[in-house]
């Protein structure tokens, strides 16, 4: 997922220049991360359809989940996974969803979510579960059970975009 739209362009009075308009610049090549030495390229379906993880911080009050999921429903997005819980700050909740879609369609969804007054913060695709699992593998994993997908921003700020495209383990 391009994170370009993870912050509304409005925040900087942003000008977005469509790459196709800019001197036919070569599409940005995906370079492997320097922090984690995986060399596998992103596996992308030809349709461009894949799952995206969105993590939102919203006001913790009755009906907010309804407000958020309402946006998904009326714009025709289907939620694959949903996890809700209190955020690290009192009075706020974190909603983590997994939604299938193309980068473009999810980008439009994010713009609609940004219109919600109860939304404080939205971050995209920060799932680290695959990375965590790989990290633990050398020590031997007995069993993995998963609930709804949970995603948090990791302290190091490493982006794991290249991990996407792997099917979910187990």
């Amino acid at each position, binding site marked *: 997922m391009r*994170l*370009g739209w*993870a*912050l*509304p*362009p*409005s*925040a*900087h*009075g*942003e*000008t*977005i*220049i*469509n790459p196709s*308009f800019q001197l036919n610049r070569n599409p*940005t*090549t*995906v*370079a*492997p*991360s*320097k*922090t984690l030495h995986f060399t596998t390229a992103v596996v992308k379906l030809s349709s461009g359809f894949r799952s995206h993880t969105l993590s939102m911080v919203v006001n913790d009050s009755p*009906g907010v989940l*309804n*407000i958020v999921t*309402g946006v998904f429903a*009326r714009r025709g997005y289907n939620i694959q996974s949903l996890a809700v819980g209190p955020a*690290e*700050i*009192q*009075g*706020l909740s974190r909603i983590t969803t997994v939604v299938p879609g193309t980068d473009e369609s999810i*980008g*439009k969804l994010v*713009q*609609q979510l*940004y*219109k919600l*007054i*109860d*939304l*404080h*913060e939205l*971050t*995209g695709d920060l799932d680290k579960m695959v990375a965590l699992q790989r990290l633990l593998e050398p020590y031997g994993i007995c069993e993995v059970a998963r609930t709804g997908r949970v995603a*948090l*921003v990791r*302290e190091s*700020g490493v*982006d794991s*975009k*290249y991990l996407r495209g792997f099917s979910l383990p187990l």
Partner: protein
Amino acid sequence: MASTALNPSFSKPSPFPSFNSLKPHCRITLPVLTNYRKPTPHRPPLHITNSLSDPKPKPATAAAATKTATASTTTTTTPETFLSRFTPDEPRKGADILVEALEREGVTNVFAYPGGASMEIHQALTRSSTIRNVLPRHEQGGIFAAEGYARASGLPGVCIATSGPGATNLVSGLADALLDSVPIVAITGQVPRRMIGTDAFQETPIVEVTRSITKHNYLVLDVEDIPRVVREAFFLASSGRPGPVLIDVPKDIQQQLAVPIWNQPIRLSGYVSRLPKPPLENHLEQIVRLISESKKPVLYVGGGCLNSSEELRRFVELTGIPVASTLMGLGAFPSSDELSLQMLGMHGTVYANYAVDKADLLLAFGVRFDDRVTGKIEAFASRAKIVHIDIDAAEIGKNKQPHVSVCADVKDAWKGMNSLLEKEGKLKFDFSDWREELKEQKMKYPLSFKTFGEAIPPQYAIQVLDELTNGSAVISTGVGQHQMWAAQWYKYNGPRQWLTSGGLGAMGFGLPAAIGAAVARPDAIVVDIDGDGSFIMNVQELATIRVENLPIKIMLLNNQHLGMVVQWEDRFYKANRAHTYLGNPSKESEIFPDMLKFAEACDIPAARVTKRGELRKAIKKMLETPGPYLLDVIVPHQEHVLPMIPSGGAFKDVITEGDGRSMY
């Protein structure tokens, strides 16, 4: 889309601290650095937190957290000159707090219809010396009137209804205000808190019902929240892309005694941080450069430009770029100007659509590429580079991918571009060949209509009205053929002169909207150009007009049919009439219903005109009669709104000929 129209009593908030920057010791904001992509300014900052890994947060952290959650924004509230009817520490009812909160927002008119759950508010309104209630005869009339008020003045319109059916009657108006970005604050009564969720008498979960048709809504559960909620509602309604906000107030809260705290800060940190910032100069420079490189530029302006009419005129003066307007944008640029191409889109002029089709640069400012404008989206402006400026980030790239886009208030963008253009004297644009080409199209395909004997062509009636009012009247309309003709044939010279339900297309809008306009602008000539179908949908508002003695002129284009649907039946359904005749089938020779009797019932002078030769005199009489007046203009139902690009079509599919007198 539309630009900011702040309530005058609201002091503009200073740039708020972002949500995260308030607790520097607990959260650090770092820009993300990735290996595969150059960091760009619109990269999201990654928020790194340690508060979760800290099992026992230090007291300072906890305090900061509370601070963030409760008071992340600060604003000064009401001007200190406000004189309350109550002494500061005097307990008063929640309804009185609500009404005073409205007063503090500068509200002078509300459109409120009472009921069991809202009568406390009405009681409080009678105690207010500054707020006048205009009593509609239906809640839908009330909210449409509030919309007319907001559209004509640019200030938020306020309507109040009771719980249950009163609240659900607001639904069409809320949806309309959301689609057309009209600032509305709707207040509804609700059953007492203890009865919520019990299917009580006149209970509807209106907050649930209106969730997707309001910009935001509130259910007040604590009387202490009223001052803050009202303040937030007005701020939300009128800032950014304006829209409707609903406040649901349970009856027991209206009755509860409390001492209000007026200087509560608003809690909209997320929203405020996402409001668009002023555009950057180098982005505007880029647009100016694109203009200088173009040969066939065209402006496509919409409802977002209604607050920046002057800047738009100046921009056109400096560049000489022709202007095509959407239905919502009519009046932002004077229709009578030589560079005006008038309306574009499905029923737009041939030359406006020609200009967009042939353009090499489309300057789309304050617009949303609606399907009624674009038709087949792939074919729309297919030869042009597209520059899109809009206040709503979600509109950019929603329907059509722009080449260059700026998320900002168009007013600021224009100011910036104008000063750039004024500074750089060397930039001289010459689009005279392009303007010649368009002038040729204007000559070749002017707006036209045919005349059949003494029958009154509806377009002619509007043309005469335009002449007699010198293009200065405030026009409201219903929805359908008459609406399109009013858009095409009346020459709007200024913004906020044209009040119509654009996005939603709500019939019955014209009459109540005219009420709102007449309240907001008592000195203006207000004319409701209506159709017989639309008029009857809110005909009860004639009573309001009479009682309030509002000088509203109603010019009814009566063709006894649901004209626009008839037109589609003629064109695409072999003229099969499917419940589109609105007269009495057993007495087809008579006009039914007799609209003059509706007027008579409400003591409003009225006349009917059926012959072209008598039309001018009749319209003159309508305009000269003091107070309200209804003129029933009988027009043939065979007329079609032309030009027409069928739904989903492209410019090449434009229809300029024919009517219901021939078969297709």
